[in-house]
């Protein structure tokens, strides 16, 4: 009585800043072909898969900034990916910068849209959309830093919550990059019965604060730790997919992996480049956790969780109002 879905994690190597769109799309189609050749029904691409990770720079030129955003989805730039996926009968999940004119009016903070992921069915139809809630970094450019992390400057906070979708014979949710470190995000998906979480990321391989306190190894460990732990604690499968390698001089961690509801890694990337990992995910393997240790209805105690929704920042003891 297994409900098996064959999933491919399509890790990507770096996308250079200049003139790469067509090349990037060709690489994505090659990854899709590989995934399909291995029988995958669903291919998962990283966050901001069509472009470089542009929030690492202060970008003064409006035309350049807008060039990283997709005005519609699909659009002529990305249509070949949709066409090939439909021809192959493979669904996919992909992250991109979504242009949204309503996010423009922000004064000096230059929000141009959302950091978005979509789930596309085997027939090429968009089944679901998620806009990143946990934007890391800063709104303002930090002086004396080689690389910035300006997601809060260029993107508005996601306004769709953490939606779960019935798709591919199960219940599927999407998270983007930094979201995976936030157990609140996973829990909101699991509280909708989510069985498969798809996560694309671009994560710096260096200490983003300019120090040397965190190495690429430690940051890769953190990435895997949170995916494994949250897959376990929410009794779901997880597919975490990197854009990896040295992108325009800035290192990105790899560590793409497919994780089962026990938190075990069942497939793991070996490179920092374009690489396809395929795993058979039995969605019924979620039942053990969902009906036992993590039977939420039997064991959760929301009356004691109020701080999670009633306060934003930490309030140390003795400093309550």
């Amino acid at each position, binding site marked *: 009585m297994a409900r098996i879905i064959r999933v491919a994690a399509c890790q990507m190597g770096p996308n250079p800043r200049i003139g790469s769109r067509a090349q990037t799309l060709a690489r994505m189609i090659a990854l899709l072909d590989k995934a399909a050749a291995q029988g995958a029904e669903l291919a998962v691409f990283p966050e901001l898969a069509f472009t470089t990770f542009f929030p690492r720079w202060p970008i003064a030129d409006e035309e350049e900034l807008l060039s990283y955003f997709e005005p519609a989805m699909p659009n002529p730039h990305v249509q070949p990916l949709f066409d090939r996926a439909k021809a192959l009968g493979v669904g996919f999940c992909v992250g991109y910068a979504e242009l949204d004119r309503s996010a423009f009016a922000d004064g000096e903070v230059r929000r141009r849209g959302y950091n978005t992921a979509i789930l596309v069915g085997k027939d090429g139809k968009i089944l679901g959309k998620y806009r990143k809630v946990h934007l*890391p970094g800063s709104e303002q450019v930090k002086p004396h830093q080689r690389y910035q992390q300006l997601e809060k400057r260029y993107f508005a906070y996601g306004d769709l919550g953490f939606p779960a*979708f019935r798709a591919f014979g199960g219940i599927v949710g999407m998270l983007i990059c930094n979201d995976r470190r936030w*157990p609140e995000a996973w829990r909101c998906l699991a509280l909708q019965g989510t069985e498969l979480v798809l996560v694309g990321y671009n994560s710096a391989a260096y200490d983003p604060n300019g120090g040397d306190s965190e190495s690429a190894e430690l940051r890769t460990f*953190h990435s895997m*730790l949170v995916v494994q732990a949250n897959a376990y604690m929410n009794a779901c499968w997880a597919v975490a997919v990197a854009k990896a390698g040295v992108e325009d001089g800035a290192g990105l961690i790899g560590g793409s992996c497919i994780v089962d509801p026990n938190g075990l890694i069942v497939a793991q990337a070996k490179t920092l480049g374009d690489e396809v990992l395929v795993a058979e995910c039995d969605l019924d393997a979620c*039942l053990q956790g969902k009906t*036992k240790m993590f039977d939420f209805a039997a064991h959760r*105690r929301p009356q004691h969780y109020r701080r999670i929704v009633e306060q934003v920042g930490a309030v140390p003891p003795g400093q309550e109002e």
Partner: protein
Amino acid sequence: MARRITVGGAQLGAIQKADSRKVAVERMLALMAEGQRRGVELIVFPELALTTFFPRHYVENLDEADHWYETAMPSNETAPLFEAARKYRMGFHLGYAELTHEADETGVERKRRFNTAILVNPDGRIVLKYRKVHLPGHAEFDPARKVQHLEKRYFEVGNLGFPVVRTPMGRREEGINLGIMICNDRRWPEAWRVLGLQSVELVTLGYNTPSINQEAKGWEAHHLRVFHSHLSVQAGCYQNACWGVAVAKAGVEDGAELFGHSIIVNPQGEIVAMADTWEDQLITADCDLDMCRLGRTTIFNFAAHRRPEHYTRITAQVGAVEPPIV
């Protein structure tokens, strides 16, 4: 200017049904003496450290189980732990079954039972009490199980929330933010987060966890049990930028196996010390509390990055609600 505290995880081997509290306390005193030799300032004992894990034994009438509970803390039997704390200038965490006569939510005073843990400071004063919120298992005898797990029968859900106290401990006179968890709580990110939202720097946690899945529902490879315990604590510490000390009662107790593998975890989620027996064993680590600051001021700067407006499901619903079929 590191803010260091030397912490001990005092794993206990099995305590059999026939063992007296006196025997358990003597074993704990030996671990405190060992801790004193190693400079320990705060020592952590497991959940239900004074008795066997009695929720594996069914009784029809709960009153017949009163002898497993503490009605006073300290008591004649546990007073030596408090004396040792003063003598060694060593704080301790102790888990025990608590029997009390208190008003319940409806205002009616009655006999109440909790799975409780306390933190005692080097003056022998109780500075924090926590009553377990996430009670696993079941309330009625389950004939399908080889071993019962009747925590939902023997205990009420804790009514103290997840408190954090700032208090001097060991040589840290300026105070440390300390929080407590018990056993199954460690698998619930909500519990970690409520502590994290109070700037907890060190979480002390005791457990009694069977090394095999005793529920006759589904199958779970035995080796995953320890992995899950470690994974939950490592992620809880990392995601809340705090230290964690997770301490087992281990070994074969009344014929049922409990795993050991007690650990001390840093705010990066790394295991810095681990027990390698199923017996009484002290593990220690020098915990630099300032290590919490990196996470807290960057990736896990809650004030800058949390979005509670999107977390409403966490308190608005208990169980999972699947999306409608369209």
